């Protein structure tokens, strides 16, 4: 009996939260038009959300690419197909690892920071104060951050993939002796712009949307105390990770499922 009560209360709580989240999303999207006429607001946020995530994305991309180069080489060389290392590295990065890993890193680096920032603004009455100054905090604070996150994500994913491909080349061609020309030309021939690149970009747009939305909403919905903000930050990272991985499966099935 206790269990069902718990289950019911939890389900109800989840649904009301989903409702609040959707309401928040509508407000946030409606605020975008007023942000577009003030692009400096977006640029400022793109700096703190995007540019400051640059280093972690760069370094992680490099190492992931290097590991792919190593692992790919050992497997492919068993079949004498090490010339196709470039294809393997590029396809894994552009289709999957680029969007997914960079989104996970983005949630940890930028998403948590957004939640903490908004949550603290709420706890210190800055949002309330803005409302009393007749300034809508959703329009002024939330929408620019949303746009910045949404637009930064594909750029960061592209950076991740590009650096990863170089990392694969450093290991594959530099250390393991795969032919440089074959690495690039095989990749060039096999990677399809529509199927691989565009689909990867779509994925990262979806992940950028969902991660930034979760991060901003958790901050805005946080209990305005130190503990509340810390819990909200944790929830951002956990829920973003689940959403990214779950959506990735669905998107992959839709995009690449028919062959």
């Amino acid at each position: 009996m206790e269990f069902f009560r718990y289950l019911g209360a939890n389900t109800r709580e989840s649904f009301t939260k989903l409702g609040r989240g959707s309401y928040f999303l509508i407000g946030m999207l409606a605020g975008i038009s007023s942000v577009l006429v003030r692009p400096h607001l977006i640029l400022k946020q793109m700096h703190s959300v995007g540019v400051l995530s640059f280093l972690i994305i760069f370094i992680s991309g490099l190492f992931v690419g290097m590991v792919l180069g190593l692992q790919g080489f050992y497997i492919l060389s068993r079949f004498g197909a090490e010339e196709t290392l470039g294809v393997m590295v590029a396809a894994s990065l552009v289709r999957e690892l680029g969007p997914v890993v960079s989104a996970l890193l983005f949630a940890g680096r930028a998403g948590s920071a957004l939640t903490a920032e908004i949550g603290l603004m709420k706890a210190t009455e800055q949002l309330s104060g803005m409302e009393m100054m007749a300034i809508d905090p959703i329009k002024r604070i939330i929408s620019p951050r949303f746009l910045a996150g949404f637009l930064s994500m594909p750029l960061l994913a592209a950076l991740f993939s590009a650096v990863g491909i170089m990392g694969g080349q450093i290991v594959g061609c530099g250390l393991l002796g795969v032919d440089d020309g074959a690495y690039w030309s095989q990749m060039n021939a096999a990677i399809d712009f529509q199927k691989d690149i565009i689909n990867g970009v779509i994925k990262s747009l979806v992940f950028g949307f969902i991660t930034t939305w979760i991060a901003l909403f958790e901050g805005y919905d946080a209990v305005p105390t130190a503990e509340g903000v810390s819990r909200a930050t944790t929830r951002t990272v956990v829920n973003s990770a689940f959403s990214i991985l779950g959506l990735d499966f669905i998107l992959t099935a839709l995009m690449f499922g028919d062959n």
Partner: protein
Amino acid sequence: MDNRGHHPNQNSLVSVHNLTFSRGEKKIFDNISLEFERGKITAIMGPSGTGKTTLLKLIGGQLFPENGNIMVNGRDVHHLKRDELYTLRKRMGMLFQSGALLTGMNVYDNVAFPLREHTHLPESMIRSLVLMKLEAVGLRGARDLMPNELSGGMARRVALARAIALDPMMIMYDEPFTGQDPISMGALVLLIKSLNTTLGLTSIIVSHDVYETAAIADYIYVLSEGKVVGQGTPQEIKESSSEWVQQFMNGAADGPVHFHYPAKEKYMDDLLHCDKSLFSRKRLFGEKPAKRRRYS
């Protein structure tokens, strides 16, 4: 005595009629009526937790009453469309207890913020306005500091400069004196008084600092447990025959307001009726820590 609490006054800028508001089970306001006269300083006094901040949020339209209405400058705050409410709010300054300065920008930008958001004035004009407002609160020299570099009193003065940036018709002060040292307290008292006279503002001060408030208020309401328990000029309040008002004004620990928060059980019963789970095996031998509700 006075009948302002019961009949809407022609001179009122803000009038609260038969307001009822609850938080959960607890009735914060139980059918109260208040009048705030134009150009005057009206104080709301009462112990912490009586709902003073809540009252200001109700007047600002951030909370909705269960019953009754609040008129500001002849308009019913809670029946306005969103943009009408925002237009009205531009003319209502509010000074939060914490100052609520935007921590991401310096003092200058904080004061310039409402001007930049609401006007299309050129930057040179904004600069003059900001410097004027900062000069009025005595902090023109602090324009480059960040909010975390300000003392509590300075932060409140910056917030005050920001609140008067749009030349509002009224300002609501939430506990302006709490936690201030005697010098900045004195400075704030003078500042509130002089702003009121020079700018012709209507001021609402919410406070539990009896002496400072009584020194500048034109009219005082004393609230307790959701009711107005006393009202009048500072002189009338001081001479009030109400036991309650006397307790509050003189700071006696016990009286009509009890020192103890109401408890369900008697003290003795409470002590004797110990929680058995305190001595359970789990507690004593630490078999299993209490399960956390959720990990995320």
